[in-house]
């Protein structure tokens, strides 16, 4: 048996013969060109990651130790190395810490919420494979593929304090209107709401694929042993989809530490900076005020945070396995 099952992998291996791997292994001993072929196919993708992923990080790390701004771009000879001054300034910047705290808050609340909701949606969609359920699948997936600009325009109008849909509905049932995007506290909730709505789509499809890979025989065996639906779910289904669930949590965590899209389009970090996440704070300092050195320092701090969180997650997963 393989150690970590891929989504749907166990079911496939139960019913069909194993792929003819031994032949390829023997072949690679006799023909080393097949290993070079593998590298050759991987190389373009690796090159892209190196040039567009790794290099900008190294450049940002370098720039974070300078005072680069737009004047420095025009006259590189005026750029000065300032050592850790940018990092010291970051540590003493209350706006930076507010953005950091806000992002941490969103991650702590949002990621478990998305995991639970996506799992709930996937479990519901897994009930049947009928036409109606396939339609539902498309509907739940739509937010993931709709253009962000379209989403933001519609949600902004729905949240609008004067003529928005939500306040009109509240008025219908006699409740007082809420200043969704104007009041700092409700703006944070409103922005988080839209972000969770967007994130459920893709994650629920991943979990649905994993759920469909849970072999029916195991569930039947558990039922025969007298396990009720809840125990079957907790002790048979959840362990089977462990890998997919861990993937969903990890990718959502990495994505939400860089929370940017929704506050940018809905409130531009307002009102009075209530929804300014860390990425939005860096964007404003780097691309609106052209303080490249300062923003680069912030982005390196964000990178280290994401790397640390991801490593902790991987360690926890290994320990669990």
């Amino acid at each position, binding site marked *: 048996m393989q150690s970590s099952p891929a989504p749907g992998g166990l079911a496939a291996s139960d019913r069909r013969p194993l792929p003819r791997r031994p032949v390829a292994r023997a072949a690679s001993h006799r023909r080393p060109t097949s290993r070079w072929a593998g590298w*050759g196919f991987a190389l373009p993708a690796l090159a892209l990651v190196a040039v567009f992923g790794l290099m900008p990080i190294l450049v940002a790390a370098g720039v974070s130790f300078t005072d680069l701004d737009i004047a420095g771009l025009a006259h590189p000879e005026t750029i000065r190395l300032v050592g850790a001054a940018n990092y010291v300034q970051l540590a003493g910047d209350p706006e930076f810490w507010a953005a950091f705290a806000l992002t941490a808050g969103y991650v702590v609340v949002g990621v478990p919420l998305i995991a639970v909701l996506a799992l709930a949606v996937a479990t519901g969609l897994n009930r049947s494979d009928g036409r109606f359920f396939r339609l539902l699948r498309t509907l739940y997936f739509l937010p993931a593929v709709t253009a962000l600009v379209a989403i933001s325009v519609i949600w902004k109008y729905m949240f609008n*304090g004067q*003529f928005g849909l939500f306040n009109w509905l509240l008025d219908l049932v006699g409740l007082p209107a809420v200043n969704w995007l104007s009041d700092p506290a409700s703006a944070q909730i409103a922005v988080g709401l839209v972000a969770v709505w967007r994130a459920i789509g893709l994650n629920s499809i991943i979990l649905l694929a994993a759920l469909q890979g849970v072999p029916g025989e195991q569930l039947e065996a558990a039922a025969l042993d007298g396990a009720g639906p809840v125990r079957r779910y907790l002790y048979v289904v959840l362990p089977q989809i462990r890998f997919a669930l861990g993937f969903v949590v990890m990718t959502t965590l990495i994505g939400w530490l860089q929370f940017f899209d929704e506050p940018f389009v809905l409130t531009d970090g307002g009102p009075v900076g209530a929804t300014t996440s860390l990425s939005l704070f860096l964007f404003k300092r780097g691309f609106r005020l052209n303080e490249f050195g300062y923003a680069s320092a912030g982005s390196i701090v964000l990178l280290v945070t994401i790397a640390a969180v991801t490593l902790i997650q991987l360690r926890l997963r290994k320990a669990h396995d």
Partner: protein
Amino acid sequence: MMHSRRAATALVATLILTTTAACAAGPAASTTPAGSASEASSAATYGKALTVWVMGDSATKFEQLIAPFETQSGIDVTVEAIPWDSVNDRLTSAVASGKGPDVTQIGLSQLASFLKGDALADVSADLAAYPNLAESNFPSAVASTALNPSGGVYSVPWIADTRVLFYRSDLLSAAGIAAPPKTWDELRADAKKLTDKAAKHYGYYIPQWDAPLPVTYTWQAGGEIMADGKIDVTSDAFTKAADHYLGLYADGSVPTASDFDQTTGFISGSVAMLVSGPYLAKAVAEQAPELDGKWSVATVPTDVSGTSLYAGSNLGVWKNTTNKVGALMLLNYLADPATQVAWYTSNGDLPAATKAYQDAKLSADPLVQVYAEQLKDARLLPVSTKWDAASSEILNALNKIAVSGADKGATLKALADKVATINAGN
């Protein structure tokens, strides 16, 4: 089976190789046409190609505007449309790469970035040959000393914009107010009179994103927002301006929702008065033609003075352009009062050249008369990157007090400290 697999591998490998080769060849193939232009040093000869950056979505209309210039000079002008949101990105990439246009439109709020990035050419020595570009043709608000704090002449005026008082004359007369308010005190009194909280009607609207508004209030209170290159938020004038701004909120005359839409609010009557620009007049005329005759504009209420904002765009020649003479010829053509009037007719932007206002199309329009009157007493925001950083801080502080109920003394003290840090920076 093996044969088709080998063929498939070969096909995929060829595809990868050709795409990588095409990518490598790409940049080399697209050299800028301006490089092939003749030297710009001789006044009699000039390059036959120009690239112009135009902001917003008026590129097509701009091409029509300059068609006569292209025929007359023989220069082929390529117009590039730059969305307002990405102006700063295009500027920084052009500065970093050294590859820019020949002529660029510059929104006055971004002038400081263009100057700091050393993107524009100093044309002070060349202006004498181009009569339309003489400083006397334009209002004193855009004198070269105001536009170029460090000397030289790096841009020339192109279009103007200002802020005036919009008011619903029908709502005012219904409340017994015969004429729009002329002073600060009248404004506060009238706004209070026109406010009916229960019916969600407000007397005055202050956009929470309007960074110039506290500055214009400071000017009206007789003071300066920036003196000797340092931003000052502790002066008596600024304190008076802040009290005026916050007082209107305290009276309850101003809606506190940050997503309040000013066009819808003005048309529906949710707000009776507000300070805005010609773009609002255009929007109201388009969206609510039935409101014709029920609204109008007036110059802003005065305190010590009635100074309002001078905004708009300038035009500049890119620093390392290879067709400086051609660029200046285009600027000269665009500054011609006839061209300025044609652009007003086509795109609705107010001219910068003062002679253009004598044309019948502008002098006959009562709204334009008010704009022209206001432009006579209008000033630029400080042309400084320090101002860019400080303007959002000032706005945030005032909004925190007015909308979120923060402590006035503490917030203004924190603002003064923040501004002091900005002043001390580079």
